[in-house]
């Protein structure tokens, strides 16, 4: 395995929908200008058959691997993507885009509404996971990719992969769904509700129209991040990382300021998060997750599963209590019941929900093995017919 990883990469921008070709959302709402920030790694084969699409999670962005100038600051999935890594950029053409509704270059609530020139704020339409997928598909078409060898995602990313395969048969040879869920539990929704409350009750939230203001709902967004972050870690990983150690002092100060190391860490997570993330995006994307229920309609599910030709790998982590193995099993049961080829494994890793971002050897080996098999099958399949 290469130690160095990818070198310098750049985020690119492309307009995928405009007035002539509007994006119609599941709600029926229309967006007349959709710009997407994306990155690609590796080279697309002549027949466009070696592409792997990476779907990011709630707070991710297009910058999945490599660096933007400082080799020490690398993309969020750099340990998985690069030469000799499971998403081997010497073989595969890897694409990652910031999702619709995002705040890292792709059109979202902070973008100007073409009708008014002012930022959308809460006038941005409600999003479904399927809407995010529609924009991914437009990017895939624009890049000249045929059938995707695979799509992979953790958490919200895995939800996009699942939705994609269900709604658009023929487009994904493989779907890799990691630490994801087909339906949030009441506990998941409860955490997400508290995070949204923290944002919307911030006096600086201003009904979502804070973009021109001197103050943004930073306290609320930081609090939302702190709550979220607790659910991403496991009790064990917190104990190992912080214990009950005291920050910057020999003895507990016994006041209400930050004293324990874990408090300091959470505060740092919150404060650094507001530098790069938009509160309205947090609202829209968590809401899309709350309503996600791709197997909810039994009749439609049966029809979609019967048409599906995607082979799945579903992975969970034993220390993940945000999307526990039970969530993964629900996905496996639904796919298996619909006679879809699905492999499943619960991996052992101590990092909680965040395990999907960690270089867990057996996890990476499983992803690499599954992709390898997809590549073998794609190579033996006949080439796409050239016309007749």
């Amino acid at each position, binding site marked *: 395995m290469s130690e160095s990883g990818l070198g310098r990469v750049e985020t690119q921008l492309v307009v995928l929908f405009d007035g002539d070709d509007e994006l119609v959302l599941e709600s029926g709402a229309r967006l007349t200008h959709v710009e997407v920030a994306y990155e690609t790694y590796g080279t697309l084969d002549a027949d466009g058959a070696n592409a792997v699409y990476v779907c990011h999670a709630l707070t991710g962005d297009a910058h999945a691997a490599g660096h933007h100038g400082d080799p020490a600051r690398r993309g969020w999935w750099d340990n998985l993507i690069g030469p000799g890594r499971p998403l081997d950029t010497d073989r595969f053409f890897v694409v990652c885009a910031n999702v619709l509704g995002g705040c890292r270059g792709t059109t979202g609530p902070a973008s100007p509404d073409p009708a008014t020139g002012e930022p959308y704020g809460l006038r941005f339409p409600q999003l479904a996971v399927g809407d995010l997928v529609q924009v991914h598909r437009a990017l895939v078409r624009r890049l000249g990719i045929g059938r995707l060898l695979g799509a992979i995602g953790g958490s919200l990313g895995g939800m996009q992969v699942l939705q994609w395969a269900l709604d658009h048969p023929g487009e994904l040879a493989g779907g890799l769904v990691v630490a994801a869920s087909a339906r949030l539990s009441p506990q998941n929704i409860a955490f997400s509700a508290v995070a949204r409350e923290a944002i919307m009750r911030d006096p600086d939230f201003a009904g979502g129209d804070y973009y021109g203001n001197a103050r943004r709902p930073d306290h609320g967004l930081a609090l939302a991040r702190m709550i979220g972050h607790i659910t991403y870690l496991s009790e064990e990983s917190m104990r190992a990382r912080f214990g009950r150690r005291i920050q910057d002092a020999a003895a507990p100060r016994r006041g209400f300021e930050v004293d324990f190391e874990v408090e300091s860490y959470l505060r740092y997570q919150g404060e650094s998060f507001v530098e790069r993330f938009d509160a309205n995006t947090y609202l829209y994307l968590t809401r899309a997750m709350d309503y996600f229920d791709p197997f909810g309609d039994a009749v439609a599910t049966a029809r979609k599963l019967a048409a599906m030709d995607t*082979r799945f*790998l579903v992975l969970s982590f034993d220390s993940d209590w945000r999307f526990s193995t039970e969530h993964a099993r629900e996905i*496996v*049961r639904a796919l298996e019941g619909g*006679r879809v080829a699905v492999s*499943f*494994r619960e991996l052992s890793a101590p990092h909680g929900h965040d395990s999907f971002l960690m270089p867990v050897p057996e996890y990476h080996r*499983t992803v690499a*093995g599954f992709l390898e098999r997809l590549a073998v099958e794609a190579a033996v399949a006949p080439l796409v017919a050239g016309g007749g």
Partner: protein
Amino acid sequence: MRPDLNLVAALVGRDARVLDLGCGDGALLEQLITRQGCTGHGIERSIEGFHACIARGVPVSQGDLERELGELPSDAYDWAVLSLTLQAVRHPARVLVEMRRVAPRRIISLPNFGHWRLRAELALRGRMPSSRALPYSWHETPNIHLCTLRDFELLVAESDQVVERRVLLDGSGRPAGRTARLEPNLLATGAVYVLRDAAPTETVSSG
């Protein structure tokens, strides 16, 4: 492929939906999928077996057979296969019930602990028997529920199932010669059974 698995593949036939419990490296399922037009799913405990299945393109769940079997949807398969594994599960009777839940026809193969060699080893040497099919010593064997063919057939009868077909095996795992049929519980090294539900008994209304 193991000779007894060739036999299983022949019994399953074409275009079936197959669950292989304890599928090992996925060799049986690969053959069924690639050569016999079947779809399938395996359950395998060992990590190396799991990776071998992934490399072959065989859908597989990694984990404990009894746990994973309980997770699968009902009536999702045409066949459930359990090859030389029943003796290693914690609750054999419960596994038979679960296999009925997921598939109308089941194939179960097992080593025969009533084979004369094993009986002789215990009777004459006074030692726990071992054989090619049962190579472990008593303290490290995963085979915690060994039985004879007669024992197994009694359990089948008690669980409202019938033996649709029985193929006796010799020491190499191939179909045994004619002699074994004279006294299977003494002469066969093992057997492959095809099980299905007993036909519901006809109730005659009185009146």
